[in-house]
């Protein structure tokens, strides 16, 4: 009997230690962001004196100024345009491609060829891309970013899309063929609607990849008015060297779209990022 009681006591301690640990990890993951949020509403003096507290008076002006300064506002819309254009083109192109490669014309060589991109680090593309877009007269043009982002997202998108399309029963295509639909009809009437979850996953992950990229933007864009948000955020450090509140506000502006998306589409985000991981 005593032994029984003692064991539950140990179990209780274990449980407390476990939750304590999990909560500490949660604080370590989350608190940095909370600190930036509160600091984004303070002035320098208050950040220094009252580092951990809430702002006494919320300085919303920091956001207004950060939005106007260092091209944050313009680059916000540049990023949005580039991301949306990339996602749209990427989905059309890879949905069509993976449809053919999984259901109409299976070809191991082409599938392998298209999956090689997973192993190619972005660094291998930087110099050739700069030259290629110079040759195409697209340097310093957001279109060049859209093209590169579509290209660099092809391999993983094909991987996810193909996984989804393979799960759709073949009988559906056959039934539609008997009904007189051709490839295009089947694609739009059957494949596209059923593949929606796969498309959502591809879209979310591609959005994150584009929104968060810095390197390709740095080498392809130099006109300040055409910079993406990552680039102007990295420039904030230079322009607001001592205005910490503004810097924090700029930081928050840059992460808001991604955070909202993560909270709304968590399943797709996690699925995409870990599928992206599992693929190697």
């Amino acid at each position, binding site marked *: 009997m005593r032994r029984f009681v003692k064991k539950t006591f140990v179990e209780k301690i274990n449980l407390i230690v476990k939750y304590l640990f*999990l909560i500490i990890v949660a604080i370590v993951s989350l608190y940095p962001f909370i600190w930036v949020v509160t600091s984004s509403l303070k002035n320098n003096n208050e950040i220094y004196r009252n580092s951990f507290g809430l702002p006494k008076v919320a300085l919303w002006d920091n956001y207004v100024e950060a939005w106007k300064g260092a091209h944050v506002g313009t680059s916000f819309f540049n990023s949005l345009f580039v991301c949306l254009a990339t996602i749209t083109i990427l989905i059309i*192109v890879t949905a069509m491609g993976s449809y053919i490669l999984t259901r109409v014309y299976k070809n191991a060589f082409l599938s392998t060829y298209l999956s090689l991109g997973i192993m190619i680090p972005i660094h291998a593309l*930087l110099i050739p891309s700069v030259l290629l877009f110079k040759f195409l007269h697209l340097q310093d043009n957001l279109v060049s970013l859209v093209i590169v982002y579509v290209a660099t997202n*092809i391999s993983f998108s094909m991987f996810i899309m193909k996984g989804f399309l393979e799960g759709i029963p073949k009988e559906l295509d056959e039934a539609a063929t008997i009904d007189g639909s051709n490839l295009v009809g089947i694609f739009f009437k059957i494949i596209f609607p059923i593949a929606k979850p796969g498309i959502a996953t591809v879209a979310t992950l591609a959005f994150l990849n584009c929104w968060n990229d810095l390197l390709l933007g740095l080498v392809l864009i130099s006109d300040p008015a055409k910079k993406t948000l990552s680039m102007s955020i990295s420039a904030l450090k230079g322009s607001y060297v001592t205005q910490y509140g503004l810097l924090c506000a700029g930081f928050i502006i840059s992460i808001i779209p991604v955070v909202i998306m993560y909270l709304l589409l968590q399943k797709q985000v996690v699925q995409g990022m870990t599928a992206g991981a599992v693929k190697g």
Partner: protein
Amino acid sequence: MKRKISRLGLSILFLAPVIFVYSIFIFLPMLSSLYYSFTEWNGVTDTAFVGLKNYKSLLADSDYWVVFFNTIKLVIITLVVQIPMGLIIAFLLYSKTRGMKIFRTIYFLPVVIAPVAIALMFSLFYNSEIGIFNIILEAVGLDMLKKNWLSDTHTLLYAVMAPQVWQYIGLYVTIFLGALQSIPEELMESAQIDGANKYKTFLHIILPQISSFTSICTVLCITGSLKAFDHSWIMTGGGPGVRSAYLGVYMYKTAFVNSDFGMGSTITITIITVSLIITGILNMITTMKSNN
């Protein structure tokens, strides 16, 4: 007959865009990077084929080796911190935890945020005036540990690595959590019936079951470190000199700051080679293990 032709034609039409974009903007550039690595070239003048000259001078370049070992240090630190932490947290979450989803949501949050933003945030934390690391140290009475984290040569490299390690732990938690959830429940139950304690179950049942995920995570740590760029570039620009630069940063500096496209390509090829060799070795180990 007519139907067949149109089917083939449509297939080609459907496949063409993806293959075209991929070939022109991924595959060809990669091949040309290989070619450029054998040339001397600043991007403006004509390319001059110089054979292995770039590779030879790279091997004799002391900066390259500093950067190379910085990258290896990053690989080691991500391996010994991220994977065990990810596994431990995932294991704690897995064993009937209340609020598991909330914890997972919080842990994964930093993963989705731009590395640029994370680096910016950490450079604020390291700031000598308002940085919270120093403020916390002061608050707990450890003033003597206060530092200028990004200029002290002893802490510089680790201060640059910290945000990257911190940011991606959630990714490994999530991967391992998925791995643990994929273990058949009967296996765990029978182990418990056999009287195995938690520690033994973990060592003899769980670890072998998730070994394929562990090697995936290892590959991720390695490839992630080999292409690391943003954190170092934003926080220190890789400097002073190349003290806090990784291979990815050094490549960017060589190619786009010093306009040495040939040498930049050579560095890229060494990045690809190292990553292929390491993943190749890992694959060999895993296949050998599964054959035994």
